[in-house]
């Protein structure tokens, strides 16, 4: 397990890239290329929205590592968490209490899923588990909207929404996105600490390494699953709040979360830094291509860019950027 160090390296590299490169380019190369500042603005905007994809992808990776389940319902969990959060908030509950209550709800969801769905399906083929999570996604989508309604709800969590100029007014960056990136960074750091320094975290890493071996030293697998689904639920909650704050809480959040799938393919299903870098690549790639290639074909490239990128990528490197190489045996 080298996750911790590589995560820190990744975050560091991210921060350096996000600050140094534009600064450098802004200082030196104003006339290197006519539209450099505009390109940078688009790319940075893309990177920042990519952080949001990473947030969703992170939840997938956690569950996949610990239980081998490809959790299609992560997007639905984002929507469900966001709906519950905004629903409670609209009832007049203070923000901090909303957060705690929704965290409780997500824990309950995790326990229910483990008890009713995962436990009867132990040792089933991965593809069956994948399809079952599509079922879970539908239940959560339906349930969330049935309880809290399906109209779009604004969610103001007190972050600044206006774009502001950086680097001598050359580059326009959305402040909200920057805060979102900071929060995402903090979340990853918290996860690293959790995995690295707590007893449960160590057990989780053991399970991720080898189910059988972990069980044989007395780590209760089912308990671990509840924990990891809960953690994924909390990650979904953070993602839901951020996405909801950006776009309003609505059903389309579940569809945005679908974009986390190509992110995972790029990054590899088992790698946390992979999820982050995959998100950044998808975010920046789709924004840049939309702005610079979109006009050539009438726009809308964003709809499919991520999937096509993943498709092409898969053909050349099926295990993703950071995933482990698959060796087939007979």
């Amino acid at each position, binding site marked *: 397990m080298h996750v911790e160090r590589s995560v820190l390296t990744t975050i560091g590299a991210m921060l350096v890239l996000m600050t140094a490169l534009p600064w450098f380019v802004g200082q030196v190369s104003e006339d290197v290329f006519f539209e450099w500042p505009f390109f940078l603005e688009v790319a940075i905007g893309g990177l920042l929205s990519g952080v949001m994809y990473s947030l969703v992808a992170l939840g997938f990776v956690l569950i996949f590592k610990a239980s081998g389940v490809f959790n299609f319902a992560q997007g639905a969990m984002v929507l469900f968490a966001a709906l519950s959060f905004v629903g409670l908030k609209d009832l007049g509950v203070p923000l901090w209490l909303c957060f705690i209550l929704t965290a409780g709800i997500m824990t309950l969801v995790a326990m229910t899923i483990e008890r009713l769905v995962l436990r009867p399906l132990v040792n089933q083929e991965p*593809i069956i588990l994948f399809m079952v999570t599509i079922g879970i996604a539908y239940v959560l989508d*339906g349930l969330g909207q049935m309880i809290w309604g399906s109209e779009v709800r604004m969610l103001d969590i007190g972050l600044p929404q206006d774009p502001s100029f950086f680097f001598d007014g050359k580059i326009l960056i959305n402040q909200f996105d920057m805060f979102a990136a900071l929060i995402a960074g903090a979340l990853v750091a918290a996860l690293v600490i959790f995995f690295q320094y707590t007893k449960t975290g160590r057990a989780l890493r053991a399970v991720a390494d080898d189910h059988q071996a972990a069980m044989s030293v007395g780590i209760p697998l089912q308990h671990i699953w509840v924990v990891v689904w809960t953690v994924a639920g909390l990650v979904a909650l953070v993602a839901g709040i951020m996405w909801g704050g950006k776009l309003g809480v609505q059903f389309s959040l579940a569809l945005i979360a679908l974009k986390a799938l190509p992110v995972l393919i790029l990054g590899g299903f088992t790698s946390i830094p992979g999820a982050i870098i995959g998100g950044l690549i998808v975010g920046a790639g789709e924004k840049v291509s939309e702005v610079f290639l979109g006009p050539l074909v009438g726009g809308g490239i964003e709809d499919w860019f991520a999937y096509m990128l993943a498709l092409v990528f898969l053909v050349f490197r099926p295990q993703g950027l950071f995933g482990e190489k698959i060796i087939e045996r007979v």
Partner: protein
Amino acid sequence: MFYREAGQFKTSYQADQAIFPIRQDLYAYIAFLAVAFIGVPLLASDYFLSTLMLPFLVLALAAIGLNILTGYAGQLSLGTGGFMATGAFAAYKLSTAFPDMHLIIVFLLSGLITAGVGIFFGIPSLRIKGFYLAVATLASQFFLIWMFNKFGWFTNYSASGVISAPPRTVFGDFYITGPQAAPVTKYLFCLSFVVLLALLAKNLTRSNIGRKWMAIRDMDIAAEIIGIPMLKTKLIAFAVSSFYCGIAGAFWAFLYTGSVEPLAFDVNRSFQVLFMIIIGGLGSIMGSFLGAAFMVLLPIFLTNAPHMVGVEISVSTLSHLEAMVFGVLIIFFLIVEPHGLARLWQIFKEKMRLWPFPH
């Protein structure tokens, strides 16, 4: 009369290979077809035919298509909607570009065009499988729908993007599409097509290629080692599956809704068809029909059941309830009976063979 096979001895392998080796099954099948071809058109109302039977038949056809790819060949696809859209737009372009082309030819050609598109998007399946492939098929789904929305050529530059199927006749002056078409003729046309295609699909799945598909599904490495060419066999599965989905898409647009619109084939359609084969039965042609019937009937049941017990539920709540019920059913079937309704039916028949003597 009892459901028994006692006394029916097979004297040739050919008889043993028949689709319905048990005579009672064959009789039941013939009776069922008679009801579908004669009884339903005589008794059913236009409303029943066009809002229940047509979507049922079209969805069943799409389900057969996906079942060939996912249930038999084991390649999970979330791109069914995109392939159906391809069939619908191919049929539209063909029938407007060549107004004299016979409608049956139009449908078959649009199936073939979709098969070509399916082969293209099936190429990555050589290197990737399982949920990786599912994500890759999402690429085809989103790309195809985007393409049909974006380029005016596909809609003959119609301003709204929603276009109607042009009126066409078959066998003299029976209108099959367009406003003059009677639901009964549409139904009979669709039914004949679907029954025929279902029979061909059944044959494929019980012949050499079907065994190759199932071998790849059950254990791809072993399949390769006993000499099954991977890429070719998978691509054939993609082609045949897309052919069926394409024709289903063309039927959806031309026979059922009468208009060609990309929205009808979005990613939710892909999930819907996947749900049908999970509930109906993975790897079963009959399951495709059962799943489609279930998919058409459940919303009607959910709409009417609360009425009957005097509870009023709003339309939006109802759609959420529907999503939940489907989700729960998917989970239920995958846990309890991964082979779906078709397997439950088989178990029922096995019980019936012995009934009323349990041992």
